[in-house]
Structure formats: C-alpha cells, structure tokens
C-alpha cells in the first residue's frame, strides 16, 4: 500500500507497511515501555517482562493487517491491551510449567489476573507517561539547556523556583516562563502524537 506523505494516517495503519521504519520505531518507542511496565506491575520478573514485550510486539506485527479502525470498535490501545493481556496469561501458564508449582498456586495467580474487560490495569496511565517521555525527547534538543534544567528541577524534581533561579542565574519570572514554555511544548508534542495515532 502506498500512503501519500502529506496525509499522515493513524499509526496503526502506517504499521501495516513493514518498510515504514519510522512508524515502527515510533510505535516501539511508545509502547514497549508501556507493555514492560504493565507486565512488571503484574509481578513478572524483569526477564519475563522483556520476553512478554517481545511476544506482544511479534503478535502485533502478525495481526496488524487484520486490525480495522472503526469508530464503533475498539481503539488501537484497547486492542493492544488485549494482546498484552493474552500474552500475559500465556506467559504465566508456561512459566508455571517450569516452576512446577502445584495446582492451587496456579489457580491463585490466575485469579489475581484482572479481568481484561473491566479495567485496563494501568495501561492507559503508562501509555500517557510513555508519550510524555517521548515528547520530552522531542522537545529537549530544541530548548536551551538552562531552560530545560529550569523545567526539570522545578517540575520534575519539585525544587523551589527560588533556588533554581539562583543556581541558574535567572530571575524567578524567567524560571516560571521556562518551565511553562517547556510544558506547553510538551503538551503540543503530545497532542500531535495523539492526532496521528
């Protein structure tokens, strides 16, 4: 399929083109950490979580052709969450085999898995965070280091405006402007990403 460069399709449609490295990169950058974190939050070990990430990405690569974007149907993220959930269930059962846990233990873990239909289990939150991290990577190279530092120290590390202003040789007002501008840029980058996916 060919996509006119001017009309950016939604990310999922772009993923159908296996040669669209750019879109795949974008997809992996955003979603890889999401899947990993959700897996960790559900109690998987680090290596198992990585393994799960790979499985999900493979499943997406296989299934992406069949995804039909349709307003009445599930969103891409929901779809991805379901794949993650499925793979997670499989991961749990197969790793139980290796550990040779008894019957009741398996049952306990399985019952602890949230039902896929009722909540997304932090998936949305992790997704939002991941998009913010991605946006930060876009924005940071385009602002002065001092601006970024002013933003980082006040907004991320929660330092007081006064001390940051003093360290950076800026005025309080300048620090407020710096952090607000960076945030506004982050918001714009996030919005742009959301539009395209």
């Amino acid at each position, binding site marked *: 399929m060919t996509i006119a460069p001017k009309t950016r399709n939604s990310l999922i449609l772009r*993923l159908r083109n*296996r*040669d669209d490295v750019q879109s*795949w*990169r*974008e997809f992996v*950058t955003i979603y*890889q*950490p999401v899947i990993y974190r959700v897996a960790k939050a559900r109690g998987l070990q*680090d*290596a198992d979580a990585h393994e799960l990430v*790979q499985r999900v*990405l493979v499943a997406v690569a*296989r*299934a992406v052709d*069949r995804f039909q974007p349709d307003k009445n149907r*599930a969103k891409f993220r929901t*779809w991805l969450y*379901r794949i993650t959930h*499925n793979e997670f*269930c*499989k991961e749990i*059962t*197969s790793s*139980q085999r290796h550990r040779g846990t008894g*019957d009741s233990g398996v049952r306990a873990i*399985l019952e602890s898995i949230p039902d*896929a*239909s009722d909540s997304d289990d932090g998936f949305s939150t992790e997704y*939002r*965070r991941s998009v*913010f*991290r*991605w946006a*930060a*990577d*876009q924005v940071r190279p385009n602002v002065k*280091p*001092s601006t*970024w*530092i002013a933003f980082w*120290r006040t907004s*991320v*590390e*929660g330092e007081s405006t006064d001390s940051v202003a003093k*360290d*950076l*040789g*800026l*005025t*309080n*007002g*300048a620090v407020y*402007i*710096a*952090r*607000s*501008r960076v*945030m*506004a840029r982050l918001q714009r980058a996030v919005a742009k990403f959301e539009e395209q996916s």
Partner: protein
Amino acid sequence: MKPAQCNDRRLLQILDDTSADRHLDTVAHLEDCERCQSRLVELAADGDSWTVARDALRDSDVYQNRSDDQNLEDVVTRSLSGYPDNGSVIIAVDSELAEDIPVQADRVSLDFLSPASHPEMLGRVGQYDVERLIGTGGMGIVFKAFDSELHRPVAVKVLAPHLAHSGGARQRFAREAQSAAAVVHENVVPIHYVDTKGDLPFLVMQYVAGESLQARIDREGPLGADEILQIGIQIARGLSAAHDQGLVHRDVKPGNILLESAINRVLITDFGLARAADDASVTRSGIIAGTPHYMSPEQAKGLPVDTRSDLFGLGGVLYFMATGRPPFRADGAIAVLNKICSTEHRPVDEVNEQIPADLAELTDDLLAKDPAERPASAEAIADALSGQLKSFRSGRPRFRKRRKSMKWRLGILACATLVLASAVGVWLLPPSIFPFANGSPRNVQPMTAGPPAAHSDGIAAGPIQFAPLTNANVRANAASNFTPAKRPEPTVAPPIEAPSWNQTPADLPFAPPPEFVSDVVSDPMDWEIRRQIKHLEVEIINFEEKWMLLPPVSTIPPETDPLSSDIDELKMQIEILEQGPSQTPVY
C-alpha cells in the same frame, strides 16, 4: 518601566511566542505577581498533565536511554560550574539562540529610555528608537534600534547596571569604546556613537544582519578548509587594523565574530570592551566573568597582555572552526584556565583529518603558550592564510601524517567486539526466547542507546531492539549495500547518545570514532573492520530469515498443567469472541 497589568492574553503570548524579549513588561510583571506566576503554569497545562509529566519523567526506565539522564546531569554540572558556552557573549545580531528565556533582562531597567515614538517600539534613547532586545550577556544588553535621523538600523549596547555603577568600568567603557570607534576597517563592526553621560553608558554600532560564528558552527558543525581560511584572513585583517592603533581586543572568540548573512563579510565586534568587563566583574564576585575558553595563558595568569594575546585567541577561533570545539575544555572556568596554562591542545588535524598541514601548523603556532613563540603579527597571519588559501585552491594541499590516538583504535575495537558478541549471542540462542535478533541492520550501533546488548557470556539479553522483519524486507536489507555508518532516522531515537561534536568530552574513552559516523574512510584497517561487520550482518540476516520460517512460537502447544491450560484456553476463547473476528490476532 511600568509594571503590566495581569493579563492572560499576554501570558499566552509568552507561552507561545518564541521571543519573550518582546514582552519585557509582562516578564517584569511576572517577577512579583504570584497570581500570574501560577496562572502561567495553569495555562501551560492542567494539573493532571503536570502530574503525569512529573511521574513520567522522574521515573527512569530500562527502556529510557540512560545516557539521557547522564547527559542532563552533565549539563547541570556544567551550568553550575560556570561552563555555559555563551556566558559572556553579547551578540549584536539576530541570534537563533536569543529566542529563549530573557536572561537577566529585567535586571536592566529600561528607565533610561524615553517614551517611544511608535507603539511597537520599546522606547527611545537619543535619536534611536529601540525596537527590541537582541542579546544579553555579562556586559550588558543589546537592542536593535532605528536611527531616526539617518534612517538606518543600528545596534545599541547598554552597559549592565552592575558595571555602570563602577566608576572605573564606566571610564574604561568610554575610553575603549572611543578607541574602538577609531578603528575603521571593513572587518571591524563600526561604532557610530558613544554616550557616557546618562545613568547607563551606551554605544551605538552598525547593526549586522547575520549570526555569530559560534551560532553558525553550533548549527552547522565544523567548516571546510576553504571557508576557515577565508574567515581567518578577514579576522586577522580586522585584528591587524586594531593592533596598528595599539588596541588589543582581549576577547577574541567565536561569539564575537559576526558573519554578515548577505555577503561573505566577517566582522569583529566588542573591541576592547572585555577590559571594561574584566575589572568590574572580578571585583564584584571574585571570579572571572564569562567563558575563558579562548583566553590566552598570559591573560589567565593575570600577566600583562599585548596584541599577541589576540593572536592566541585567533588560534582558538581557527581551532573552533576546524573542529567545532575550543582547544581547551574542562568542567568549570578554573579547570579550563588551568588547562590553557599547562596542557597542550590536541592538534587540529588529529581531530579533523581534512585540515591541511599548513593550517594545522599555523594554529599550533598561534596557540603557543609563550607569546614570543607566536607569529609576529596579525598582518603576517593574514598573509600566511592568504597564501594557504591560494595553494589550497590551486593544488593538492599537504596533509600531516596521521597520528591516530590509541583511544580511537580502542573505540573501533570495542564496537567490533560488541557486534561480534551480539552475533554470537544470536546464534547460540534458542529462537523461542529470542524472537528478534537485535542485529537487524539498522540497529547495529553498538554505541547507541539502550541496555547492554550482550552480556559477558555472549548471550544477548535485555530488551531487544525490535524492528519489524518480514521476509520481504529482510531480503531487501540483505540485498542492499549495507554501510554501518548509515544512521537511523533521528526523530524518534534522539541523538543524545551520540552527542554533538561540540559537546563530546575530548577524553571520552570510547567515543565512537568519527569514521563510524561519517562516511570518510581512509584507513585500510577501518575497511577491514567494516568488512567483518558487514559479514556478520549478513549472518544475522540469514539467521533471522531462517527463524521467520519457523512456526510461530505460540502455536507450539505448551505442556502445561492440564487444569491451568484449560482455564487459560477458556479465557482466551472468551476474549477472542469478545473481540470479534476483525481485530483478533490469530495465534
């Protein structure tokens, strides 16, 4: 200046607009108005987004490029230790970098301006309508203004108040500005007028539409020999004209070299002003203001300086043009000064092989620690550079024998070893736990981001760089003439790990050798390594292709406990039913 009223629209402009410099009154208002401070934060994003941003960014992650944080720390350390590269630059041009936050802008009262004659102007000084701020720095602030008598744009430089209150600095400002005004040369920014009577002394000079050499190289990277020579000749001529009148610039550095955008003219600015700044700032804070990267050893030691000090600065500027970085770098001003006095710089042509030997040798001579060992005069340098330009353009330039440092060799070896290790890892691994080799051609950049690609035992582990691989594109990749130097699209993978050339610490032991990131290959050994890498690439691709032909992992029935597999099976079937056929991945 009258404080502005609370006004959300102005705040939004500040958020949106890339130059807060146009909203000086709002900036001043923000200083004290708590309501507007919190309002600005609200307008930037709602509270929820601030929280998400904080949590997202604070929480570093295995998938986050670790060097990001490292990099940020470096930046913080540097900025705290007085390293900022343009600390003392006053740029009398439209600088790309002037777009951000107004550094100390409001510390300069604009009271000295009389009311503007035009609503879009900030104010008026003498016959000059001040239009906007174009730069700030340790010395003062620079405005673009319009000379209403002569109908031409000018740059008005106002001495910073902390300097203006020092009687000595005022006198020097006046004296040096007057002598600078006496230098009439096409490569020196002309001074039109000096006023030392008002509260804040100011001087008026030609407005140069263009950018500083610093900004140009920050943006575009090191220059070619031809351009270096052209610019070098003009700087040397400008210096020569000043030296003829006994005037020492004292602060020759890329930030003070302006490149006029329309024609290839180079102008030196800030003549002699450094001296005015020197005294006042040293007594004020006990430290040296600005960046000492281009300071001569005699200046750094506080010894008397003469015109030969400027020649050292010129050497530094030539070095910067050729390599994109100053000859002496360290964390913090004092460390830089120490290096200037005690360490030899790394030869230019060792950093950039494309610099001809003559130019490299001249740069070495200019950077001699002992002033007596430097070339005799700026004029002699201008002549020497002209001769070099001629021979460079006419024939084959001479290059020094390359003396590649051991570090680079080690760097290459490390890259190769890493690739080898990952390749071995790929071969050893059972496919079921390693669906995608991390050696898909575009990802083979052992020095790039991410967790370790290979452990000591040679087994690749950790998150695997995922690239969609179909048989089709695997073949396409295999068929394409792969070059390891080809870099991935930079948009998503931020170019942090490969720091820009002007930020790379010189002593980074395993900095990727330039050969890897550029397409310049001249050493036969590089070729050999590249060939080996390419060979490994093909192996990896073959492996991937084989793997792709295997049945999907998940169709292999797991020998699980019957009960749990039944439950699992049921759950999955339910979900598949719920999802409907069109969105169901088939396993």
